């Protein structure tokens, strides 16, 4: 039993380390701003997830004070990584390109972050809500 636990923890540690290294290396290596955004937000989070799972298993099998704290940290990181990625992507869009250089999102709508049709774009799907909101504004 202890042998299998050791193999599991070693595999998780090595996997997490490799993923963390690849994620940070991608930050230096990749050519474009948006592709550089891709590497750390996915790979580093997976690497930290592996390390935290290894820590959870280690404290569960070999120590007397096991707890679920690592799962809490992993959950928090998994929830916050997409928000961080979204905010940095919006920053890149505003700092790097003019609005007319961006790819066409289609369906007669602009990118939400540029906001020219921001008051219309969400409300078009539900006409009643649109009318209610418009009445409220007037």
């Amino acid at each position, binding site marked *: 039993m202890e042998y299998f636990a*050791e*193999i599991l*923890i*070693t595999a998780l*540690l*090595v996997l*997490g*380390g*490799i993923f*963390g*290294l690849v*994620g*940070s*290396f991608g*930050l*230096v290596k990749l050519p474009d*701003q948006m592709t*550089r*955004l891709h590497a*750390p*937000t996915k790979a*580093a*989070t997976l*690497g*930290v997830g592996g*390390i*935290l799972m*290894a*820590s959870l298993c*280690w*404290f569960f099998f070999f*120590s007397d*004070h096991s*707890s679920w*704290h*690592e799962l*809490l*940290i992993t959950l*928090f*990181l998994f929830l*916050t990584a997409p*928000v*961080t990625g979204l*905010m*940095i992507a*919006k*920053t*890149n869009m*505003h*700092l*790097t390109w003019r609005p007319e250089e961006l790819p066409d999102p289609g369906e007669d709508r602009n990118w939400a972050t540029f906001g020219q049709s921001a008051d219309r774009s969400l409300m078009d799907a539900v006409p009643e809500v649109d009318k209610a909101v418009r009445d409220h504004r007037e």
Partner: protein
Amino acid sequence: MIGYALYFAFACFGIGQLFCLYRVVIAPGVGDRVLALDTMSINMIALIALFGILHDTAMYFEIMLLFAMVGFVSTVAYAKFLLRGDVIE
């Protein structure tokens, strides 16, 4: 066996921190710097977790949680500042 894997993971995340530091110092845009700082805080969480395994202590959980929260909030605040010129409008 776990000891070798532990030191391997330490080396991986240490080299990762150096890559991130390089990207903070030499970057083509401000967004890359913010991203590199966010990655540094995430890698630091992993390093603290490894340190906790090495010393067999549960004292570092709160530090990891604080690092996660402060890293997230500071990254979002910086990105918001770059987007709008203000953090709280």
